[in-house]
């Protein structure tokens, strides 16, 4: 079970015209691991996710991904002409509808299942998009800043939901985020994309939930901010 499901990015380069966004990037994600991907805006995080999702085939190099991939896009991308529940169960069997409704309830949108997506608030749309990604028990789960539009409290509960689902089905998770705290709280590995390659790569030590005050994690946090070019004095 182990090796076949690993995600492999092998010497991937990607150009947009003269602009090289990914430059011979290699990365390996172990099956069932939870990795946070950080990097400055425009560093190529979404580009890498699109390649992994099979949406961009114009790149050099090689990637290996499991068959069932699920994506929460940076914008919610709910089909405006389908109800929220229909969006969540898009592409799934009819029998998945109860599960879809349940997942909607878990993201706090039980009463919105029949609503039109254009009537949702930004945060509600993002939660519906998250539900759509989580409901299908993928082997690889790609999350592109899925918590960006959420308030602190909702964000916490969505973190918990994501972790619960990860523990239940053990997908390989690649989570793009700008939030260092979020990365350290959720992931067991953090990588930073810079200059078209993985410029920083570290395991997150300690147990989730207990780890945020631990010296080793505080040290890693400082290192991460450094890698992201943020002044650490106040951070």
């Amino acid at each position, binding site marked *: 079970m182990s090796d076949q499901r690993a995600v492999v990015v092998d010497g991937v380069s990607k150009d947009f015209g003269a602009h090289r966004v990914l430059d011979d990037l290699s990365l390996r994600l172990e099956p069932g691991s939870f990795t946070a991907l950080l990097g400055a805006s425009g560093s190529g995080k979404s580009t890498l996710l699109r390649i992994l*999702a*099979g*949406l961009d085939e114009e790149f050099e190099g090689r990637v290996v991904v499991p068959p069932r*991939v*699920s*994506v929460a*896009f940076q*914008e919610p*991308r709910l*089909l*405006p*002409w*389908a109800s929220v529940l229909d969006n969540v169960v*898009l*592409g*799934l069997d009819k029998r998945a509808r109860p599960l879809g409704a349940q997942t909607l309830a878990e993201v706090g949108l039980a009463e919105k299942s029949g609503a*039109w*997506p*254009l*009537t949702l608030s930004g945060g509600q749309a993002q939660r519906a998009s998250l539900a*759509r990604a989580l409901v*299908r028990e993928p082997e690889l789960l790609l999350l592109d800043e899925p918590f960006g539009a959420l308030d602190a409290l909702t964000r916490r509960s969505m973190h918990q939901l994501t972790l619960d689902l990860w523990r239940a089905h053990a997908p390989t998770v690649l989570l793009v985020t700008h939030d260092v705290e979020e990365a350290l709280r959720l992931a067991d590995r953090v990588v930073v994309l810079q200059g078209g390659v993985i410029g920083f790569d570290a395991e997150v030590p300690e147990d989730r939930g207990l780890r945020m005050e631990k010296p080793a994690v505080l040290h890693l946090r400082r290192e991460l901010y450094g890698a992201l070019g943020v002044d650490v004095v106040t951070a």
Partner: protein
Amino acid sequence: MSVVSVGAAATSATENGVVRHGRGSNRRRRGPRLRYLSLVALLVLWFVADKADWISADTFPGPGAVWHAAVDLAQSGKLADALQVSLTRVVIGGLIGVVLGVVLGLLSGFSHLAESVLDTPLQALRAVPFTALVPIFILWLGIGEAPKIAIVAFAVFFPVYINTYAGIRSVDVKYAEVAQVYGLSRVAVARRVLLPGALPGILVGIRYALALSWISVIVAEQLNASSGIGFLLVNARQFLQVDVMFVCLVLYALLGVVTDLVYRLVERRLLVWRRGFDGA
């Protein structure tokens, strides 16, 4: 400090900034009422023009004379006959044109192969005015119902085809990507994403087509027919029945309005998910 008066202006500039007053929710729309009011005003103007002899009854009969002519036509059964004949032609020809337009538009929209085969000849054909085809269709199809139906179908086809095709091509790729990621088949992508995404465009085409269907049937009936509203008009002209001619004109206008009303109802049901700007 400046005092803001609550009054006619919803927005006013003060030294503190721009002040906006809410209009409350569930505001009654004055659009529909205004729409009918302007129609009534036009009728009143017509009535007054007739009474004041601004218009001559020989060339521009008043509402009363037109009404009497309409009643006569209705009582003799001619009006219902003409209506039924024209309506049948519009419905059959319109259906053929809409179905063909949607199907070929979808094909051109979906597949580059179909596009390269279909689109150029159709664009060339589009430049041919349907009026020019009336004699050809009579030559080919005789003088029965077929040429009239063919004219309507031809006129209706192009706006539907072009808007369907453009509608498919304007569907945002980001939605198609969602479908692709979640493993929808090509057929499912077409049905769940491209078709609903193109629907607003398709409906625009159909709306044009509905107006064109009436115009084209009238033209076809004026050039060659022994029944229908267009025939009624030609006939009235021959016998200098100006009032009957006006009955036909008013009838066209009414048919256009009714058709558009029906269209709006259908559109509202089909596009409930949209939250677009629908007028100020």
